[in-house]
């Protein structure tokens, strides 16, 4: 695939081009600092679990 970044043999990773990144970018919905704070507060309050979440609950080793 021509648009895919190519891996190099020395372990360095070629970055996606600015055009590719621009195509993937999703702008923030919230524009003002107050809107951002409110959205983050909504996101980070009220979600609880009665168990401790550990890596093995969402990602295989």
């Amino acid at each position, binding site marked *: 695939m021509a648009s*895919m*970044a*190519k*891996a*190099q*043999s020395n*372990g*360095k*990773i*070629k*970055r*996606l081009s600015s055009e*590719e*990144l621009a195509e*993937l*970018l*999703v*702008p*923030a*919905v*919230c524009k003002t*600092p107050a*809107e*951002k*704070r409110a*959205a*983050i507060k*909504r*996101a*980070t*309050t*009220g*979600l*609880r*679990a*009665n*168990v*401790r*979440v550990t*890596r093995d*609950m*969402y*990602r*295989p*080793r």
Partner: protein
Amino acid sequence: MSPPGGRRLVVTRGVFAIEDQELLLPDPIALDTSFVVEALLTTQPLHGVCSALFNRIGESDATVVTSDLLALELAESAFAITLKERWGGRWRGHRTDGRSRRPVTQRLNHTVTRYEALLSSVTHLPIPVRRIITEARVLMSDYGLASYDAAHAAGAIAAGAKAMITLDTGFALLPASLLTVYTDRSRLASCRKKRPRGQR
């Protein structure tokens, strides 16, 4: 800045504590699932630290890089939490239990709603796994990263992120020149120990 008198100079090896209020936030910055889980769930031990750091990211206007895998892993965590709450240590055996469907769906929807709210506050760069498969393989073969860690790391590097915020020490298998690791204080030493020697 010189180290305090009599103390050994701390070699950071490109690993820094997220509790540090002076921590620089590069733009773009990558997030791992472990950090997002901690920020979203109020019952996780590092919730306060991680939600506060996300507030700083929002204020900084830095672009947030994630792998597409993150949304899927969040869904998996919601699934696992619900099963574990109901079945305890035997939760894996109840994955296909129909009685779990409704609570699983409910928790999954709550989690997705909150993740979307979080992302609405920042400019987001989601990196599709198909774009970085080759790079992830290189990170696995060159540094021994596990496949999913490699996908997250390859996405971050391909997007130009200088740092990954994570509570997972696996990312420290990469040399500091490829990715700085931001993690909590309790993992600093093990991350620094894991960094490959002879590479900066």
